């Protein structure tokens, strides 16, 4: 199953290529920690990328509305982009103005068949937060404060046609070779369609919350399936500060929050064998009681046993210090392959 890429010749070369790819996925996070990383003598190279990104950006700017959104989703999906690209595609660059209150009500009605006022006791038609492909509103029902995430209209319906518009630019952008592009775009299409499926997100969220709610100092909103649809999610409103805005001088508080985060991830990886593969500060809040709140389960990945076992065996000292055994495991993981 060889794909694009001029195939690197030696085994070592192939291996290093893959790591490159894996590490670059980190780019998304590096954006948040950018200042810590950017100072480097490789600025010339970065410049080059910037110019490249400029071209592509200008191309994308000629796209409108949902096509632009698809291009943005695509760039997030391919988060292997160098910094220069990621910055060009960051949310602020493409920020979509919030829906007008009238359009919010209309959109809600279209997705739910009912007016928000028929569903909730209170509903604020002015959104409080932007989400990646939607916006979040405050609401209230039976005295409970709720957060309602509404997907931008039209995104899901037009993915296929938008993708065909974005395709020529993306081909250039990602250096996709002709014979691979169809397969690649089919994959992207189903991925994007999945991302717009809020029913799936609600199901996933409910399952994870049930499995992890026993972890101390960790909180989740309840998700309300009966008040959600494929384009709308209703959950508890969570009071808290974004992790990126939070700071404390109290080491005990730091330890408590960090331990909760650690336990949450270790439990997912080792016990559930399913992990939220997108840990970034936007997905966490700190409550007024200094507890951790998790608010987004849009990116869950299953870890199959035939990957899990060799991966963590790889990590054992007796293996990592033994080059022969180490290489053998890389083959077992099918990270390295015989040609």
């Amino acid at each position, binding site marked *: 199953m060889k*794909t694009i890429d001029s195939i690197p010749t030696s085994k070592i070369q192939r291996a290093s290529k893959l790591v490159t*790819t894996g590490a670059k996925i980190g780019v998304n996070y590096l954006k948040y920690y950018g200042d810590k990383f950017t100072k480097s003598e490789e600025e010339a190279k970065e410049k080059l990328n910037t110019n490249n990104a400029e071209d592509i950006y200008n191309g994308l700017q000629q796209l409108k509305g949902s096509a632009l959104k698809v291009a943005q989703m695509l760039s997030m999906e391919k988060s292997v982009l160098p910094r220069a690209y990621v910055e060009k595609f960051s949310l602020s660059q493409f920020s979509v103005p919030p829906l007008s209150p009238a359009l919010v009500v209309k959109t809600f009605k279209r997705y739910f068949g009912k007016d928000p006022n028929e569903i909730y006791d209170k509903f604020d038609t002015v959104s409080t937060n932007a989400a990646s492909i939607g916006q979040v509103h405050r609401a209230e029902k039976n005295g409970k404060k709720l957060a309602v995430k509404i997907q931008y209209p039209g995104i899901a319906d037009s993915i296929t046609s938008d993708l065909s518009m974005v395709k020529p630019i993306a081909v250039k952008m990602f250096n996709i070779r002709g014979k691979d592009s169809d397969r690649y775009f089919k994959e992207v299409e189903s991925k994007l369609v999945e991302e717009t499926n809020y029913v799936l997100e609600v199901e996933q969220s409910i399952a994870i919350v049930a499995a992890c709610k026993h972890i101390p100092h960790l909180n989740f909103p309840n998700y309300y399936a009966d008040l959600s649809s494929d384009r709308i999610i209703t959950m508890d409103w969570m009071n808290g500060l974004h992790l990126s805005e939070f700071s404390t001088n109290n080491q005990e508080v*730091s330890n408590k929050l960090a331990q909760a985060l650690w336990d949450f991830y270790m439990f997912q990886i080792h016990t559930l064998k399913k992990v939220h593969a997108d840990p970034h500060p936007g997905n966490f809040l700190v409550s007024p009681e200094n507890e951790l709140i998790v608010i987004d389960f849009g990116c869950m990945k299953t870890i199959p046993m035939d990957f899990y076992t060799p991966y963590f065996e790889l990590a054992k000292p007796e293996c*990592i210090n033994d080059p022969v055994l180490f290489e053998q495991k890389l083959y077992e993981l099918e990270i390295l392959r015989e040609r």
Partner: protein
Amino acid sequence: MFHEMLSLFTQPFHEEEFDFSDDIFFGQISDLGSKYMKSSELKNMNGNRGSKHFIYINRTFFGLYNLMHDLKGKEIRINNYKNL
């Protein structure tokens, strides 16, 4: 290079307690990140079955360690999840 990455990512697992506020550890993580990131080849499509999971799990650790460092967590009990 695999070796460098794996050794680094799994370092906390060899301890009972780990100090994620440690700037040396975090410095190594970020060096590794920027090193690979700066090489600007854009080809990530790869058919090897293991690579997909490998990428996701490494991405997860990368993001997690960044958050752990941001939170300045010390004395983190690595195997605590087993007792929950």
